[in-house]
């Protein structure tokens, strides 16, 4: 066991903090209020190599270890969770799926432009009647000549509105299958942008596939491997979202602690009141527990272990911590916490997404219960 960050990781972290403070923090409020996807930030992030954070240098990636990448997401989320989730979707869900399951040709074709930010990736799995029950998806992939014809509707597609590359899951004759669909392919239409409580800078859209012809060369993996590809991507994303939850929670503590040290009521800074101290202390206890859970999960990604159990644990706990910490920290700031002119209301709205996106907490509870019962020979269905 060694809990220290390597010198390289410490250097990366300093660099992330510097980038985020300079390039992300100043525009965060505007991104939220104007519901503007963080395109400027993505361009600058691409210049730093962040859009190909975990990709090998062969594909112009930064070849970061996953712990460093988790710290990148954590840092960005502290300033702007919309930016963190946009980048996480691109890297964890899409680029790493192509890296993990693509042929050399596919990797050479798509990964360099993804790393350069010329193509932003989105992940199209959810459908109106297939939310938690993703396997119930109805989007159809019918074999047709040298490829497939895709038909169906995908909802809640994060990055849908800004994507150049769509990772689409559809039912082919051999089972659920993943396809890489490029923007501008006839039959692919990006529709309604979801107006959301938080994460307002994430372009979450509906996607329509109508007679959308995709060459067989764009199939990722074999027919029927789609479910496995999606699961692995969602497990990586769960840990990445855990890092975002850690970032937003830690930042909420920092903002509220500053406020509590300055706000005077009853003749003293409110930080002198035990009620406020307890809010802060309970929050930091949770944040620290989450921090090591997240870093451990990220380390497991690099060990190429099966992530199913740990990803569920990280995501469920991160959602709970981000929610409870932003809730308490908003309370510390009283009326000021409730005003949109201060960052806390945004953090509170953003943090609530973690209980839902990437699969609701209830699904992670099922996964953990399945894990516990596996050794007892009890099979658990969701």
């Amino acid at each position, binding site marked *: 066991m060694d809990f220290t960050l390597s010198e390289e990781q410490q250097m990366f972290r300093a660099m992330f903090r510097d980038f985020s403070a300079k390039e992300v923090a100043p525009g965060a409020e505007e991104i939220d209020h104007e519901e503007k996807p963080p395109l400027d930030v993505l361009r600058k992030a691409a210049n730093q190599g962040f859009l190909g954070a975990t990709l090998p240098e062969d594909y112009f990636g930064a070849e970061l270890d996953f712990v460093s990448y988790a710290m990148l997401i954590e840092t960005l989320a502290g300033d702007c969770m919309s930016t963190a989730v946009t980048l996480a979707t691109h890297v964890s869900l899409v680029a790493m799926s192509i890296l993990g399951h693509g042929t050399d040709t596919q990797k050479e074709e798509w990964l360099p432009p993804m790393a350069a930010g010329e193509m932003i990736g989105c992940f199209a799995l959810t459908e109106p009647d297939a939310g*938690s029950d993703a396997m119930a998806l109805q989007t159809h992939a019918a074999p047709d000549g040298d490829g497939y014809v895709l038909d169906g509707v995908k909802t809640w597609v994060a990055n849908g509105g800004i994507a150049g590359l769509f990772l689409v899951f559809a039912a082919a004759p051999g089972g659920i299958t993943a396809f890489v669909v490029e923007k501008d392919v006839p039959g692919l239409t990006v529709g309604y942008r979801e107006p*959301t409580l938080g994460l307002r800078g994430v372009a979450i859209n509906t996607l329509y596939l109508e007679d959308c012809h995709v060459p067989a060369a764009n199939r990722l993996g074999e027919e029927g491997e789609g479910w496995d590809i999606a699961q692995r991507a969602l497990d990586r994303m769960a840990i990445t979202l855990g890092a975002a939850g850690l970032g937003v929670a830690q930042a909420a503590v920092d903002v509220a602690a500053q406020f509590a040290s300055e706000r005077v009521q009853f003749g003293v800074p409110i930080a002198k009141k035990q009620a406020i101290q307890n809010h802060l202390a309970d929050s930091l206890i949770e944040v620290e527990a989450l921090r090591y859970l997240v870093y451990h999960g990220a380390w497991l990604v690099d060990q190429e272990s099966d992530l199913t159990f740990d990803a569920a644990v990280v995501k469920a706990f991160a959602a709970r911590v981000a929610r409870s910490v932003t809730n308490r920290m908003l309370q510390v700031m009283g009326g000021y916490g409730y005003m*949109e002119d201060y960052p806390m209301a945004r953090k509170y709205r953003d943090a609530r997404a973690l209980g839902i996106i990437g699969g609701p*907490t209830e699904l992670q509870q099922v996964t953990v219960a399945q894990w516990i019962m596996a050794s007892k020979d009890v099979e658990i269905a969701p």
Partner: protein
Amino acid sequence: MDFTFAPEHIALRRLVREFAENEMAPLAMEIDREGRVPFETLRKMAKIGLLGVCFPQKYGGMGAGETGYCILMEELGRVCTSTATNVGAHIGIGAMSIYLDGTEEQKQKYLMPLARGEKLGAFVLTEADAGSDAAAIRTRAVRDGNEWVLNGTKTFNTNGSFADVVTVMAVTDPTLGARGGMTAFIVEAGTPGFKVGTHENKMGIRGSSTAELIFEDVRVPHENVLGKVGEGFISFMKTLDMGRLTLGAACLGGAQAALETSVHWAKTRKQFGVALAHKQSVQWMIADMATEVEALRSLVYRVAWLVDTGQPFTQLAAMCKMYGSEVASRAIDVALQIHGGLGYSRDFPIERNFRDARISEIFEGTNEIQRIVIASNIFRQHGVRIRP
């Protein structure tokens, strides 16, 4: 013991529910998006007597007492928290302060048009450096002959930007502090020097107005002193006690709505081949939520009964506000979770309810202040005096 509502209260609930569903529900999303106060709704409420629901008929009210007022707030809170907030600020603290401490002349002159809804009221206390520590206000009132001259700036005033009649707390004797040095004044809008400052951009209750109010040499006749000079602190504590109870009632409505919509969605939404209602995770959520809603309901109407029968209720009113706001927040959080993505979308009411509900843990005294009130009442009975 008798837990049944009187026939007139049952009729009142029917009236308000119908009004809320027909007149308020269709507007709730719009006023949130546009950030505007639904004056048209307030005018319609005035017409059917709801803006004076609790006051005696001789002062232009409906005479439904505190129980009737809680029924009103519960039903408004069930449909639109912004509108409940406007109404609560008008009746529960604005007009209420005059009802509790006004002279007969003040009641005729000010309470009557407020109760009839011809005029709208507000209660003005908070300042930038005096939030939870309300005794730290600095707005000054200096006597000048038969007038008082007010100077200061008040923040976070609900209804303040449009109210016709506001009750303002000011310091009349800085040497005495809160107890003895603070006085309440009735100030009419349009009085020279009384200006509206910046409007707050809030996360929720965006269909209510929260504004800064500026007093610059505002001259108020001595006859507009509410209660006795120097007794403002006692005056506002009494008023806020009433406001806390009815805020709890509005929270009850919000929690009730969350429960209803959750049950409906759990019945409708199918995943893994069955309605969510068949999943124990969801069943437990509903069971816990329903239990809390029922506990809150009993608390709210028990305290309303204490008020209507003239019994002490301060500690229990603080519990109504604190527990009510936390029950409502929990219930709406769970409703959002049950609805998944749709709960997080601004196209559905839960998202708005989630933003709206959060204010109740903060305004009308933060829940930390409520806990101080409750604890100090308990410890006082044991001979221990606690300070905030």
